[in-house]
């Protein structure tokens, strides 16, 4: 069991770091559906795994200046409030409802992965008119071979979405990157690589906000969380090095397909079919 959990963690960390999520969207269905672990134990382990993914990938992304720390810190303010509220609420929900909510929360990831564009460092409208702001940034894109500058738009919208992402994170033990990355890319004009790196940076703090609550309640079992954390750390260290160099469209679509199947299984388990 220990080695299986470690391998699942490794897989989740590798791809979580690449797509800007904590890997919980892979981890929780795999731990519950493959290994038959209770969903609360999987959520507890996932919270720890999200912190590990975030920390490991941020080491690379912050060093490469892909992470927009000022933007991340600003959005963290609303996302942590959402996470604390989600962590408190989770104790009062049944396992079938949690599984159903989890299946629903996977939908934005599936859609954003499927629609992910190849090498689109500056989405349409990113260089909009208007005064430069303190959140604007630039980074070097190794695939393009030059620096990409961008302006951050519609911060209030980002703050509201970050709050909702934090709430779902606290409730379900995922990082919420699946919601934050599309919001930053499509809504705020942040290039996808910077959005994924900034999301990875944020989700650790988001997870910490609910981790203390889960841990105090005894919902985090070290015998599940520790091998998961070791696995995701190794995976995320590798994923954060590979991710920025990848031509990611096909990979993203493949994972969208896998996740759609997992979401369907979780939805079925919510109504009592095949869930342990």
């Amino acid at each position: 069991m220990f080695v299986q959990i470690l391998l699942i963690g490794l897989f989740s960390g590798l791809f979580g770091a690449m797509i800007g999520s904590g890997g919980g969207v892979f981890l929780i269905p795999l731990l519950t559906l493959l290994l038959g672990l209770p969903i609360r134990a999987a959520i507890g382990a996932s919270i720890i795994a999200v912190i590990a993914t975030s920390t490991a990938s941020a080491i690379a992304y912050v060093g490469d200046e892909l992470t927009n720390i000022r933007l991340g810190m600003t959005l963290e303010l609303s996302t942590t409030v959402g996470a604390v509220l989600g962590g408190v609420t989770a104790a009062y929900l049944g396992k079938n409802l949690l599984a159903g909510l989890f299946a629903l929360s996977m939908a934005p990831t599936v859609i954003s992965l499927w629609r992910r564009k190849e090498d689109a460092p500056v989405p349409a409208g990113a260089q909009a008119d208007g005064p430069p702001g303190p959140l604007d940034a630039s980074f070097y894109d190794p695939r393009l071979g030059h620096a990409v500058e961008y302006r951050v738009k519609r911060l209030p919208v980002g703050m509201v979405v970050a709050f909702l992402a934090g709430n779902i994170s606290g409730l379900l033990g995922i990082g919420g990157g699946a919601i934050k990355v599309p919001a930053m890319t499509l809504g705020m004009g942040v290039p996808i690589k910077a959005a994924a790196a900034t999301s990875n940076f944020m989700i650790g703090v988001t997870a910490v906000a609910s981790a203390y609550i889960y841990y105090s309640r005894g919902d985090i079992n070290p015998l599940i969380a520790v091998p998961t954390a070791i696995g995701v750390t190794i995976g995320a260290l590798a994923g954060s090095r590979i991710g920025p160099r990848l031509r990611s469209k096909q990979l993203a679509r493949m994972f969208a397909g896998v996740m759609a199947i997992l979401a369907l299984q979780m939805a079925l388990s919510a109504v009592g079919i095949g869930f342990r």
Partner: protein
Amino acid sequence: MQLTNSQGHHTARLNRLIQMTLIIGLSLSMLFMITGTGLFMLHPPAAGSPAIAAGQLLPGLAAGDPMAFMITGMIVLMVTPAFRVAVAALGYLLEGDWKFALVSLGVVAVLAVSVFIGRA
């Protein structure tokens, strides 16, 4: 981020500081977790609850208790992002960037509230 020379210089310095905080936190955490896992495999504890009270962690570490090592690793991991926010707040304060120092301190305050809720 290289918006202006001055801000770019400050940002690069803060990035390095945050990166070092994360490296130290993650390395320490992994050291405890891997040691705990190794000890667990060598000497599996008797069946029962893996929970250890916070006050028993240090004696547990001294006695080579695998669960004490695993839980300490988890706690170090959980503290690392919070510590990184505090480091950023301090960095912004030293740079005189009051706005982002306040934002960072706000995040620290929310995390402190979550610890309080967890204990309540």
